[in-house]
């Protein structure tokens, strides 16, 4: 067999094999215009808030300015109006979005990593390990997480965005772990895992280099969906007044302006923009997650054929 034939065979093999999941994702987003718009919207908005916040001095922004007392939108210096202390809503919105989004990203990364490892270990080893780990899971499911988070936030004398993220991620890994465990259970009985075991591959390598890559598309979808959820968690906590420390704007604290009867009726601009932003952001991220899930389903269909 000469080289030309080998090249030809290789080309044929490539053409007949299933397309890579990355390629499928790109195709999916090209075909689905709403998903493409969602991606551009979310990525553009995150970059905008992160770079925009470099140009805003938080101390200046959060200082009281009586001249801007409930400034109406579109007055000079107050594009989206001002609140009771004359602070610009637009500035708070940018800084607050950055804080909320970064906390949600951090929370998603930490809790997903932990959840994935937990699910892999629990599903792969099975038996007594699985049983005891599932007891812990059951316990975490029944505890009133939000109330305990509120209590913990009250105990810690001083905290910032990082500690808050860590506290939150203690309580939001369960969904991911359950999903990954179920998938690992079915995956670890497949032939390639059994063959690998028989040939003496180390357990760690089987779990993280062989099983995990096969779950990668599932993990990507789950991470995207939990990102949208986690934005809700952070804004919810800040809304109740137990999120970031006082004086640090967040989407939740802006929405909490609506707790005041005057604000909610007369000074609608103090809270409505943040509310709409949360809705649009969550819808867009979930839509991306749904589009990703479609591509993973089609990968599974193709590989099964």
């Amino acid at each position, binding site marked *: 067999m000469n080289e030309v034939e080998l090249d030809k065979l290789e080309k044929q093999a490539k053409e007949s094999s299933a397309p890579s999941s990355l390629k499928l994702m790109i195709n999916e987003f090209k075909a689905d215009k709403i998903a493409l718009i969602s991606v551009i919207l979310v990525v553009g908005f995150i970059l905008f808030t992160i770079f925009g916040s470099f140009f805003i001095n938080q101390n200046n922004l959060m200082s009281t300015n009586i001249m801007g007392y409930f400034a109406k939108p579109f007055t000079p210096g107050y594009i989206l109006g001002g609140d009771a202390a004359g602070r610009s809503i637009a500035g708070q919105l940018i800084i607050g979005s950055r804080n909320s989004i970064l906390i949600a990203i951090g929370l998603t990364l930490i809790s997903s990593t932990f959840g994935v490892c937990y699910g892999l270990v629990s599903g792969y080893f099975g038996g007594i390990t699985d049983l005891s780990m599932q007891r812990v899971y059951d*316990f975490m499911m029944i505890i009133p997480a*939000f109330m305990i988070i509120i209590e913990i936030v009250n105990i810690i004398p001083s905290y910032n965005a990082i500690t808050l993220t860590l506290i939150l991620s203690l309580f939001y890994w369960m969904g991911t772990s359950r999903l990954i465990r179920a998938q690992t259970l079915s995956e670890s009985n497949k032939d390639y895992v059994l063959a690998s075991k028989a040939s003496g591959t180390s357990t760690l390598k089987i779990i993280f280099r062989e099983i995990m890559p096969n779950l990668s598309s599932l993990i990507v979808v789950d991470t995207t969906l939990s990102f949208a959820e986690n934005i809700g968690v952070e804004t919810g906590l800040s809304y109740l007044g137990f999120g970031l420390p006082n004086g640090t704007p967040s989407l939740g604290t802006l929405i909490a302006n609506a707790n005041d009867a005057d604000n909610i009726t007369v000074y609608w601009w103090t809270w409505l923009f943040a509310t709409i932003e949360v809705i649009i952001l969550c819808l867009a991220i979930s839509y991306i997650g749904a589009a990703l899930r479609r591509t993973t389903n089609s990968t599974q269909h193709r590989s099964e054929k």
Partner: protein
Amino acid sequence: MIPELIVLSVIVFIISKQLPGDPFTGSISPKTSPNQLHHLMKINGLYDPWYQQYSNWVVHLFHGDLGTSYEYQEPVSSLIASRAVNTFWLALLTMIMTYAIGLPLGLYAGRHEGKLQDTLVRIYSYMTMSIPFFVVLVLGCWIFGYDLNLFPTAGSVSPTASGFFPVLFSRLYHMILPATLGALFATSGITQYLRSGVVDAKNSNYVKTAKAKGVSMKNIYKHHILRNALLPIAAFAGYSITGLLGGSLFTEQIFSYPGMGLLFLNAVNFRDYTVMTALVLLYGFLSLLGTLLSDIALSVIDPRIRVK
């Protein structure tokens, strides 16, 4: 179930002991001498080691004594009981409305699988699932409560109502907006589950047999499909208790509804830790009870899930 409760109670107790401030901070005046304060702390057992305090607390717990609220100066159990009624009715109404909205939608989507109706229901489920529900409560409170002035935005009963029926109607009137909004945004699970149940049942052999025998579509849905698809959903009601309780913090805060969620938030702000501890434990216990009920109901309905 019991070990979970014990672990939860220890965690809750330790956390509440770490809270800054002591329960007498609010009730002392500048004239109170430090000695007096120490004496108060001592007779209330606040200087004991934590395990002794914990065992005292548990013993009292079993006597139905949850301590005294330092903020309201009344027994915690009666304080919670007076608020629990409100939360209970609101949760019950929300749950009824969730099923009243979710079941027809799921059935409708499953019946028209793959058609426009199915897509519309899917879009609705997707939207309600992805938007954080407290945001919608805020918007709903603004639109229907303040702007259109259709519903009350605070309290659980109008102070002017007197007599049995006026009070009942006033209560319902206060609950209807939070319950409807909460229900609209809790249906997605039920809808999706029922939809796939109906789709599965539609393709099963017993439905094909019924069709071949000439049973009308209406009767097939009524007697064959719906019954089989509905049973597991009915049993899931217990699991939804956790969600309803967690949501009560937001619902009650937004609508200033005097239930347990609002009581907890106030207790946190006033460092009223007997109330906090009792409420966290109660919420955990109720979630556990809901899970247990669902498990039992499921195993009664479906013998395959029965625990060996």
